[in-house]
């Protein structure tokens, strides 16, 4: 099968590409960033998703499937840029899929789109509304992209679409949203709150994405591995130094005294949990994570 992977140079995407190559697929990687030592069966195209050269890849190579991983977070891009890449890019690639006969498309999204709030249920299933637009405004573009891809299920019926809402991925690459949060010399937490964090090993995350393609999934699915872990315990096992900060002074402390810089709206996501129920995904694919929560944290700590 010929598979387009957008955002192929990303840490998680590289692992997905490797699984595809190992399984005998031909991979067309699209990314603005380079991947100099990519595997032999991978053709890399340094293109912007919304520009003509990207469309030309679809037009020329007529791929069978798409795995869309070219989304960015507040860590690497400003608001305007995020809307352009996340929403504009998603819209563009789904149009290419429809126009050039791609049969199956997978949108790799994030579980944080559900949003963290005091009165939200602990475990979210796919029927829960996406509240991150209000609980964490910096995620609004990802919510919009997730919903856009989800709408494609009925707007573009010729493309079998699956939307995956992945728990944080964590592992030896030390890349990703959660890894960024844990990276600083001191991890800021909100005093008196210890929310559950839901994450999975990056190898399991890659395997889940690959499995979605193999299972020809259609619909919206939460993807997670082991049970969630309280933040304080997470920091302890991952070898990070967590420092509880009283909520009133939290915004003033960020970006100073060795604490990482976090957007204002992130406070809710450090106070309250976002935990997902992956039952639907497990039933549809038979997926089982290989790493438990402790192994995952240790893999992050000692790659």
């Amino acid at each position, binding site marked *: 099968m010929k598979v387009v992977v957008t955002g192929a140079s990303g840490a998680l995407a590289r692992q997905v590409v490797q699984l595809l190559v190992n399984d005998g697929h031909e991979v067309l990687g699209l990314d603005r960033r380079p991947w100099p030592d990519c595997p032999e069966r991978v053709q890399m195209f340094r293109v912007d998703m919304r520009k003509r050269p990207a469309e030309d890849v679809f037009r020329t190579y007529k791929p069978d499937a798409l795995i869309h991983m070219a989304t960015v977070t507040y860590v690497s891009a400003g608001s305007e840029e995020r809307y352009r890449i996340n929403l504009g890019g998603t819209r563009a690639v789904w149009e290419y899929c429809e126009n050039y006969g791609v049969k199956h498309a997978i949108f790799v999204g994030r579980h944080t789109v559900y949003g963290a709030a*005091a009165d939200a249920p602990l475990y979210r299933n796919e029927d829960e509304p996406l509240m991150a637009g209000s609980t964490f405004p910096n995620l609004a573009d990802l919510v919009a992209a997730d919903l856009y891809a989800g709408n494609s299920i009925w707007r573009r019926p010729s493309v079998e679409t699956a939307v995956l809402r992945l728990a944080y991925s964590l592992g030896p690459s030390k890349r990703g949203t959660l890894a960024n949060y844990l990276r600083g010399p001191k991890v800021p937490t909100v005093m*008196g*709150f210890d929310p559950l964090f839901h994450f999975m090993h990056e190898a399991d995350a890659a395997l889940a994405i690959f499995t979605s393609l193999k299972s020809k999934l259609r619909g919206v699915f939460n993807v997670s591995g082991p049970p969630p872990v*309280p933040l304080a315990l997470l920091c302890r096992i991952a070898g990070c130094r967590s420092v509880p900060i009283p909520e009133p002074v939290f915004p003033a402390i960020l970006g100073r005294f060795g604490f990482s810089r976090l957007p204002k709206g992130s406070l809710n996501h450090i106070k309250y949990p976002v935990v997902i129920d992956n039952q639907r995904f497990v039933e549809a694919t038979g997926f089982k994570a290989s790493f438990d929560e402790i192994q995952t944290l240790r893999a992050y700590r000692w790659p």
Partner: protein
Amino acid sequence: MLNHLIHDEVQTRLDSLDLDFNAYGHDPVGISREHLGVFYSMLGFFYKQYFKVTPVGLDHIPPTGRAMLIGNHSGSLPADGGMVMASLFFDLNPPRYIHGMVEKFAQTIPFLSSWFSRIGQFTGLPEHAVRMLKDERLLMAFPEGVRGIGKLYKDKYKLVRFGTGFMRIALKTQTPIVPFAYVGGEEAFPAMFHAKSLAKLVGVPYWPVPPYLLPVPLPIRCRIHYGEPMFFEGDGTESDVVIDGYVKDVRSRIAELITEGRQALGDTT
């Protein structure tokens, strides 16, 4: 870190509790063995020495599988829920863990929020109740809600209106209901009036004031009377009339158990 605060008996009973802890003592919904141990150690003092609680009918609690324990609120301090937890931990063999449902505002309060999470007391949402029951856990609910703890001493043991949500969940999840009555709590903390301004200031629904003014309960004997499991037919989609009828049956049974309990305490007022 907190292990030294856990009593030996509690440590032993925690080992046979029906929870699946990982290597670091946490279960899949975030309950911490250590936090639970400290909490049970504290409850043990109130359960055994302070209120000297006598549980009756513990054999009605299923040894395994799901059940909903439905009872009355007794007294203006919600010690009743803690004492039910303690009775299932200290006097049931093997012990069973029971989830309670807390008010939404509790999740916004620092420390209280994380402690409730670590001891498995979740916000009172139907989604939580259904998940815990489908996971074959025990769940405790007080259908009188906040209205129940807002009763003054002059209205003691008068059941206020019951919410009906618990019944629809029980039917939807095919869960037996174990009714129970908690008695003695009204005398342990006799609320004479509510300090409304103080309640508003602190952000709680009520601030009950007893005749002796201090916000502490008296060391008065309490009893918990558990009744036989009640089974109802349906799938939770029944009309309000049907549900109201079922809820009335549970309410009546709890009223009978309250009468039994009060007679056993020698309270005939």
